[in-house]
């Protein structure tokens, strides 16, 4: 469904991604692991049309989206939880969720989806009228996740999903991911907690300084000695 082929991405002068290729099939959960600054966020942002690669090609649902603007990509059914949350700080929690349902297709289900998100994160219901910028860090993360779900995406990009969430909430979120998966949502997951990520996905890629160095099923990766050392701290 998503195909990234040999992209080279620059930020300013510096090349961040080198000849990178990944692919994600319909209904899969795929994770990307990598150290800090290895280019995971850049990869996600390139898929989302924030950065445009100098070389290579990105296709989604068979359409080339390499140079498409973000908003058009979003309207194709791709949504994300960006690094750093990026909630709309001066809007209320409810309005943030509404914005998540901005694409035409999603607006008609607005009421239902809000109800669903509220049931996932009851705190957000309580705080519906609060200005989002004053939420606690974790609450903001929940809001960012909720917002991403509002558009009923077919592809969900999660950058640092559990960042700043309490262990309990983290577990609940992974429960939700499973449910989404059952509903045939495709997911690309970035997570520092490699054990957790690998436990919840089929396949994974290992990213090192902008290059894919390894890929395989989660079982394979969990079994890999190098990975156990570098990413699992075992």
């Amino acid at each position, binding site marked *: 469904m998503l195909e990234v082929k040999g992209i080279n991405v620059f930020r300013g002068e510096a090349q961040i991604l080198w000849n990178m290729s990944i692919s994600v099939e319909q209904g899969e959960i795929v994770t990307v692991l990598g150290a*800090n600054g290895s280019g995971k966020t850049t990869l996600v942002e390139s898929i989302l049309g924030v950065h445009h690669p100098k070389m290579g090609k990105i296709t989604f649902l068979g359409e080339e989206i390499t140079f498409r603007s973000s908003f058009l990509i979003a309207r194709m059914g791709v949504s994300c939880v960006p690094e750093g949350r990026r909630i709309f700080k001066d809007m209320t929690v409810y309005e943030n969720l509404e914005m998540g349902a901005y694409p035409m297709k999603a607006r008609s289900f607005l009421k239902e989806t809000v109800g669903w998100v509220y049931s996932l994160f009851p705190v957000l219901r309580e705080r519906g009228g609060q200005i989002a910028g004053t939420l*606690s860090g*974790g609450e903001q993360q929940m809001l960012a996740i909720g917002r991403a779900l509002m558009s009923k995406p077919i592809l969900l990009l999660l950058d640092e999903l559990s*960042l700043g969430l*309490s262990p*309990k909430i983290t*577990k*609940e979120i992974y429960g939700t991911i499973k449910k989404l998966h059952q509903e045939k949502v495709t997911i690309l997951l970035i997570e520092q907690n490699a054990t957790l990520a690998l436990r919840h996905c089929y396949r994974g890629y290992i990213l090192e300084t902008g290059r894919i160095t390894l890929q395989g099923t989660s079982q394979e990766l969990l079994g890999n000695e190098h990975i156990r050392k570098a990413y699992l701290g075992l």
Partner: protein
Amino acid sequence: MGTIVEGKGLSKSFGGLTAVKKIDFYLEEGEIVGLIGPNGAGKTTLFNLVSGIFHPDEGKLFLNGRDITELRPFEICRLGIGRTFQIVRPFLKMSCLENVMVGIIGRNDRNRGRAEIGREAEDLLKFVGLDGFEGTIAGNLTLIQKKRLEMARALATEPRAILLDEVLAGLNPSEILQALALIETIRSKLKMTIFWIEHVMGAIMKASDRIIVLDQGEKIKEGKPEEIVSDPRVIGAYLGETDA
């Protein structure tokens, strides 16, 4: 060892919501104290109270026995409490080196040349592992790098106690190990007291001498890491059932 920071009956409300309720806490010199609790428990708010960004509605705050409740952030900083921000705020349009230099200037011990300050800032950057990034504009760093930069800036103010708000978030397990080593060095070499918020249980359990658990603004438990993990209230509110 003596108490350096002490809070008594601190409370803070936002509108109808009481984010921090009558919290007592203390930090002993050279201690590493963890602060955990569910999202929205009031941890960051407590940090904001201690660093003077908010003033408590009730309660008092002491630094070395001196009442600092009503002091402004820069005064508290100069008296010896440094901090980082959960949602990072480096000086985005300044270089890394300049970011740290500001911290050094913030100490307010005059009569030093810019060159010397620069050298000291370089050392600090190296200390947090940002060597080579001196000239980089802070806005171009990754989130994690920004966190380290914030740490360097906080260290630059030469605090007696340093408040770290989720500095490990976003690190992978092996990076966490390195970071823990750094924290240990801060305590042992720089002789600072550390008060930190973290959701990475493994790390906080391992490195903290003592842990305070907040829930809905209240302190529900305080004690050694082992005591915390087995406490049913903590499990119920924070850790969740299966894991422990």
